[in-house]
């Protein structure tokens, strides 16, 4: 259960050194992506000018305000509230994000499934659990929006955030095949019968 401080981007070796229940804090660049961003990239053949190799992506579509571009807000956007969405909808994009773009870290809430776990194991990646709904806190870790691409998809643009002290976030799926979500799900399903018994199911009353 070690704490790791990463200056982004990272190497495969740094990611493979992580194990479930470790914690990670990110500094530097973090990319924001969402359903429409990845549908555009992987289904509609759109491309991005950003290099995501070795980087982390977070499942988000932030609340932002248009402002005049300045050193504080280079992209012409000020972050207002940046949070995290449910990852499971974007399950099928994990492998192409890693294989085509070299992404090493996916940050989200609620976890990813078996196909993503395979991609993390084969290609060297991890899933970091952020606390969904804790967006006011998460926003305090964002320094600026440095750049934005595919902005016709706004708010589901491809966002380039500058972050400081982003975390600590729990490693919930690692590159060794472990997943906290799969473990919790298996334990919960094993308790199903007890929960139904507590409700008197089967007694026909």
């Amino acid at each position, binding site marked *: 259960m070690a704490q790791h401080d990463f200056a982004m981007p990272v190497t495969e070796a740094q990611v493979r050194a992580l194990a479930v229940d470790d914690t990670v804090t990110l500094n530097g660049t973090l990319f924001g992506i969402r359903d429409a961003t990845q549908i555009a990239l992987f289904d509609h053949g759109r491309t991005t000018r950003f290099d995501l190799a070795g980087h982390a992506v977070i499942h988000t*579509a932030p609340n932002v305000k248009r402002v005049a571009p300045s050193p504080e807000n280079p992209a012409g956007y000020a972050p*207002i509230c940046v949070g995290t969405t449910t990852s499971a909808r974007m399950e099928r994009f994990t492998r192409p994000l890693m294989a085509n773009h070299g992404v090493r870290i996916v940050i989200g809430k609620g*976890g990813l499934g078996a196909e993503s776990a395979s991609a993390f194991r084969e290609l060297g990646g991890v899933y970091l659990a952020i606390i969904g709904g804790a967006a*006011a806190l998460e926003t305090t870790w964002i320094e600026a929006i440095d750049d934005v691409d595919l902005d016709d998809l706004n708010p589901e643009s491809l966002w380039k955030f500058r972050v400081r002290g982003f975390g600590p976030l729990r490693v919930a799926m690692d590159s060794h095949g472990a997943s906290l*979500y799969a473990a*919790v799900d298996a334990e919960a399903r094993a*308790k199903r019968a007890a*929960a*139904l018994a507590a409700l008197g199911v089967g007694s026909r009353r």
Partner: protein
Amino acid sequence: MQIAPDRIEETAKELYLRALRDLPPDIKRGFATLAARETGTTAKAVLGTMIENIAVAERTNNLLCQDTGIPIYNVTIGRGAEVDGVALTAAIRRGCERATREAPLRSSIVHPLTRKNDHTSCGIAVPVIRIEFSDAFDGLKIEMIPKGSGSENNSWLKMAIPAEGVDAIRTFVIDCVLGAGGRTCPPTIVGVGIGGTADLCVHLAKVAATRPLGSHCADPDGAALETQLSEAVNLLGIGPQGLGGDSTAFGVHVEIAATHITMNPVAVNMQCHSARRASAVLGAEGVEYGY
């Protein structure tokens, strides 16, 4: 008393912003209750972060969650309130749009086929506006609920049959909570609708999911089932964010309606831990805000 559309518009705008920033006191108490009895180490830490976030949102006057939700306005026309119905719905729509533009808020609303976002939080039949009537108070009450999608995406309807009995309802609720896992942003309020037609059943589940914590089903049999289900879902160990723990749900709420002799419908709709809502009562002159 005549209630002018411009007052309704202003209230609709203000309610959206209040709901996004200020968590109702019953939900805060719910967090305190869960945190006090949680035994899991990870789960305690997760609940601690959620509670910290509520304080950060208040301190920084920021939104609790990035998800501005699907805006829902529940209007109750009370004693003596005179409103032009068409003007009322138009005013609510304008208020919702102004909140989005003036704050500004992320518009989370798109056309379901083209996925086009008008950046107004409005679209075909959205905001959802429901109108009911009550003789319990004077004036016009508006409740605003920004319904988050993580929880809304976990909604189910089962048209069970009478031979399956109440067991079908109990089993269905447990299986929905299992199926949702961490995707609903637990701890949740699990809303269960029982009876009615298919559409009424789903509506009841939404009413149940968005009811204040500590409130109970008006029907005694429904209330008893609520208590049973609340204990049972927290035996599953899914925990906050699906990372394990005792705190899977703040509770299970049940709403019921009569149904057909051949039918036994049950629906589940969930509310995430950011169980946001705000309300206001407009009288002859003033407006009183609450939750």
